[in-house]
């Protein structure tokens, strides 16, 4: 009966006797006593292989004092979890989108960056998406002509594609429909499609959608586009010569920011844009006279579109030339100053509530300032995000109109999308969309290439050089529940 020593992990059991008349299984049971490893899980290494349960000791030639090595644990055997993790690679593309944090890019189909950037900006409006999903309504009004209808359908499908894909999308159908509806976008130069003005594209698209998305029955709430983008203006038209005064109301889809020598900031530009001079026949004077028109906002939209009037027709060069002047714009815009008295009154209560709420938040924030490392900007962003989120969640509800009414506008807007232009004239250069995603991150959609950007870089698009500069800004209203 030779005695051997058995090494198991870091332990050494010396003087283990082997009963060579018994099968090695018995020996394994001996070791079970010592180590607690069940025999079937023991692996004992003898020269040249593992010790089999039915092996013959005599053939193995175990010598007195030989060292054997045993491997085995009583540990639980690893089992694959019942529900394995889902890997991004296995997911359908729609789900990957969610995890990517932004939607897909759009291929440039030959000088179509003006269109791509417009689509990307508008695509960021969830309410527009939901409105489009409902299109066409069960009862189609006859007012909508065929081309508008097709363009709307194309828009709806394109938005859908953007949401479902990770890889860039080619907006072929949309482009065709757009060119059908507005042949000016199909202009050719030297056999290739020309670069176009994004603002024109934007305006036309909004116009078409506003036409086609109008509720067929006028009894219901104002049409969706109007509610989302429409701005009501009341203007006082005053003639200094005759002292005549009249009031006008009009509805527009964007505010203009005029850029002149004095304008350094969006605020000034807007103020400028709301005042205009016009010449018209004066009934009292019996001739045409100069009238001053002073507009004020009477009703605010969910999404405020601001166009920087950067292009003007330059006769000498026969093109739309660009004003490179730097005009700063804020991430958070307060339009209270431009509102009519009437609107101001309506805004007062919601604004107070908002101020209180923010004050409360700030108060809270100051108390844990020591622990937090975030600066104020981030807090603001958080606050925005939280308010946005609450807004979004309610808006996603099927019955949209009811919660909508419970939300009150405050006249405070947050920047959500910037359409920029790079180059020296509207019909040349490059258009790019910078869009804030629902997770608060900014993405630069440069045609088929979405690139994450920092918020700081967004405000740097204010012009004054040859870098991308803001051409159209879209602000989202900050609302509070009432």
């Amino acid at each position, binding site marked *: 009966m030779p005695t051997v020593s058995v*090494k198991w*992990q*870091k332990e050494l059991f010396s003087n283990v006797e082997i009963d060579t008349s018994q099968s090695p299984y018995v020996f394994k049971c001996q070791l079970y006593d010592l180590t607690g490893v069940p025999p079937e*899980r023991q*692996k004992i*290494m*003898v*020269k*040249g*292989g*593992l010790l089999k349960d039915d092996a013959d000791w005599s053939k193995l030639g175990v010598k007195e004092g030989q*060292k*054997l*090595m045993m*491997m*085995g*644990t009583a*540990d*639980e*055997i*690893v*089992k*694959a*979890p019942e529900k*394995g*993790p*889902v*890997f*991004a*690679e*296995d*997911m359908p593309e729609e789900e990957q989108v*969610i*995890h*990517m*944090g*932004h939607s897909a890019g759009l291929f440039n189909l030959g000088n179509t960056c003006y269109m791509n950037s417009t689509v990307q900006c508008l695509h960021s409006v969830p309410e527009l998406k939901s409105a489009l999903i409902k299109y066409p309504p069960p009862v189609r009004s006859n007012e909508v002509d065929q081309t508008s209808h097709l363009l709307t359908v194309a828009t709806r499908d394109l938005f859908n594609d953007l949401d479902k894909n990770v890889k860039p999308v080619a907006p072929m159908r949309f482009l065709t429909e757009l060119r059908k509806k507005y042949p000016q976008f199909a202009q050719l130069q030297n056999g290739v499609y020309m670069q176009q003005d994004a603002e024109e594209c934007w305006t036309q698209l909004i116009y078409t959608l506003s036409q086609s998305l109008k509720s067929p029955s006028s009894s219901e709430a104002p049409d969706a586009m109007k509610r989302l983008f429409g701005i009501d203006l009341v203007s006082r038209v005053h003639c200094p010569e005759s002292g005549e005064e009249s009031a006008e109301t009009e509805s527009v889809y964007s505010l203009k920011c005029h850029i002149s020598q004095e304008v350094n900031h969006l605020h000034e530009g807007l103020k400028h844009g709301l005042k205009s001079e016009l010449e018209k026949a004066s009934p009292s004077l019996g001739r045409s006279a100069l009238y001053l028109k002073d507009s004020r906002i009477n009703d605010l939209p969910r999404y405020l579109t601001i166009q920087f009037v950067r292009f003007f027709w330059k006769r000498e060069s026969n093109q739309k030339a660009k004003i490179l002047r730097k005009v700063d714009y804020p991430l958070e815009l307060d339009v209270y100053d431009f509102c009519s008295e009437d609107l101001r009154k309506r805004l007062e209560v919601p604004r107070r509530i908002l101020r209180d709420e923010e004050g409360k938040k700030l108060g809270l924030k100051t108390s844990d300032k020591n622990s937090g490392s975030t600066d104020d900007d981030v807090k603001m962003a958080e606050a925005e995000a939280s308010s946005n989120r609450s807004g979004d969640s309610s808006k996603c509800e099927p019955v949209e109109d009811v919660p909508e009414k419970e939300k009150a506008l405050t006249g405070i807007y947050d920047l959500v999308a910037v359409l920029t232009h790079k180059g020296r004239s509207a019909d040349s250069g490059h258009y790019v969309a910078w869009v804030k995603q629902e*997770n608060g*991150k900014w993405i630069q959609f440069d045609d088929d290439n979405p690139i*994450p*950007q*920092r918020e700081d870089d967004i405000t740097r698009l204010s012009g004054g050089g040859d870098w991308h500069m803001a051409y159209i800004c879209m602000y989202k209203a900050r609302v509070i529940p009432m």
Partner: protein
Amino acid sequence: MAPAEDPNSTGSTGGGATRDQASVKVPAKDPKKKDEKKDEDLSEEDLALKQQLELYVERAQDSDPGLQKAALESMRQEIRTATSSMTSVPKPLKFLRPHYGTLQAHYEKMADSDLKKLLADILSVLALTMSPEGERASLKYRLLGSEGDIGSWGHEYVRNLAGEISQEYAKRQTEEALIDDLMELVGQIVAFHMKHNAEPEAVDLLMEVEDLDLLVEHVDNANYKRTCLYLTSSAKYLPGPDDMLVLDIAYTIYMKFEEFPRALQIALYLDNMQYVKQVFTSCNDLRKKQQFCFILARHGITFELDDEMSPEDEERESLQEIINNTKLSEGYLTLARDIEVMEPKSPEDIYKAHLLDGRASGGGSVDSARQNLAGTFVNAFVNAGFGQDKLMTVPSEVSSGGSSTSWLFKNKDHGKASAAASLGMILLWDVDSGLAQLDKYFHSTDTHVVAGALLGVGIVNCGIKNDCDPALALLADYIDKEDSSIRIGAIMGLGLAYAGSQNEQIRSKLTPILGDAKSSLDVIAFTAISLGLVYVGSCNEEVAQAIIFVLMDRSESELGEALARLLPLGLGLLYLGKQESVEATAEVSKTFNEKIRKHCDMTLLSCAYAGTGNVLKVQHFLGQCAQHLEKGETYQGPAVLGIAMVAMAEELGLEMAIRSLEHLLQYGEQNIRRAVPLALGLLCISNPKVNVMDTLSRLSHDADTEVAMAAIVSLGLIGAGTNNARIAGMLRNLSSYYYKDASLLFCVRIGQGLVHLGKGLLTLSPYHSERFLLSPTALAGLVTLLHACLDMKAIVLGKYHYVLYFLVLAMQPRMLMTVDENLKPLSVPVRVGQAVDVVGQAGRPKTITGFQTHSTPVLLSAGDRAELATEKYVPLSPILEGFVILKENPEYREDN
């Protein structure tokens, strides 16, 4: 006659010397004209000397022998005493120049006599400056002369003579004339040189006359070190077989002076096991033998001690244990504890995404299989050998009890194999606990997990030998299983665990797989590599035959697959560094299918000459790279790698190769450009040279993604285990640059993992012992990975990512660990600095520069050298690397 008093002739400073020089240089061209002129501005003393010498010349031609003798002797006296500075011709010689012709003429007329010999001596010296090149007059007169003490005429004379001898020798060799008289002279010269600190000259002369054995008689305690250093360093630049001869002499000398560690080094360099054995048998000191064992262990060869080498059983067992590397894990952990890096690191600690602004990828909530796999490798590389990490070895209660699934199952399919194997990497070298922890995976129902466990066993055992052969016992049963991933796991595991062992059992188990027509190509490819690793550099015929048959039998389409490139490599590894031995096999390879023929040829050649620095082979490879290929040919990849493999042997060749590779980048075809980054990675492995770093950084943004991927992985290779901040920063920026491209991002992660290999304690360099020895297994591992990287998309980014574990063969702690005579760690102060090349320098030059003093254990970077900063201990190995045993210095006394 009084010795020359002229201060100008002896002084080496002052205006006199410069004037002398100026006046000497010119007359060499036009002696007569200058002589007349010079008479005028000679000082009185010089003039007197000149006239005196002229008188001697005249008298030497006198008919009176007495007068003649007196004249010649005074002339000789004059010349001998006037040996002066090296830069100017001694005065007497200068003044005698015009009379060289007359004396020569007179000599011819003289009858044979002692006087004639005396004159021959003088003529021999005068010929030093006078005789036209190629006539070897100095040697001629020397042989005719009196054969007196050669050194009495000064160094310059001896050196000139040595030069003429080598010319004469070459001439006589072609004429097949006798050389006895020359050899006698050589003997004198060598003796003179060796006595006067001019070992390089002596060695050079002996090399010229091909009689290095003579050297052994002349070395003594004072000069053998310098002599051998010169011999070993010059061996690198000698064509074969001379280099072997030179090293042989060096070995003999070291053995003669009982400088055993050095002798052992040379024996290992020569790969001569007989010599290794001789070292053991010649030495009786157990401590020294232990040190030898540490050196053998670092070199990574399998070596069995027998009774002769160590007569006592117990002693032998303890020595064998050291060779088997069982102490490695312990020492490595001691180092880690000393440096305080035991704390496990997670992949996120390595990525340092917080240092990147804004770009950190958005989601993060969902696991990406590719990124998790990258995390697995990063985790394995970073925590290699530490036995703990934050993913694989977290306590079981967390993984089993908690709702979170263990990291293993966060990997997909074949990714699980790499994940399970990573446990082996984390427990590297610690066989006992490694096997215990891997055990649980053996019982898994998932084939990939089992495959990973098998591979893990191989990794744990890499470089460690154990009497029980646990790896063989565990893996052998699995190599014939149905599932090919399990088979590959077991086969690769065996290859890693027994690399370099030439284990017969493994051969008998693996070769049948090659012959089996049913085995799939991937199984065969890994079998070929494993056999190549086990029999690395052995030239084993049977294994070679088996692989050759596969290469002949397999269909053309199979040979076109990406993994097929591992077959020729397996064959090549058999001949790693064995130079001409490959020729027969290379001949056979010419009969292969044309698809793989050239590829095979390049691979064989590159392996055979790996680490030799053979310039001709480098040129051959460069020539191959200059060809413009038909589509689909792949052989230029191995050729480019071949340049690196051959040229990596020594610094000069390495620098030249780097520059050649730059040229290939400019002018080479795309498949060459793809291999260049990998070649650069091999040349500077674990040695981040700034110029290479810049090149790779540039290539990492290349328009060709394959080039970019290779460059990124190579950035990891050159920075492997250095924690180099610059490379880490580059890779971090790349991770944000390529955040969208999963494949490139994977490469970036691998690179990051490599840079922080073993938290900066490991190196991948196959060179050790002051960059003298090349570990064949380490090189084999590197080359295998690089060949796999030649087709990144199909192999590393495909489902064979575990080829990355071949790196484990090259992983070694880059430490100096000093231990006492009981092999317990002993902390002593050491100076660590940049190594200085002291070859051929006289005296005791400083061997390191810019040093800092640390206490052991310390880390050594590429090109670093350490020396003890205390006299208290004596190291048993002259090379302070790895484990070094210190002995107390008996002569040491405390200062106060």
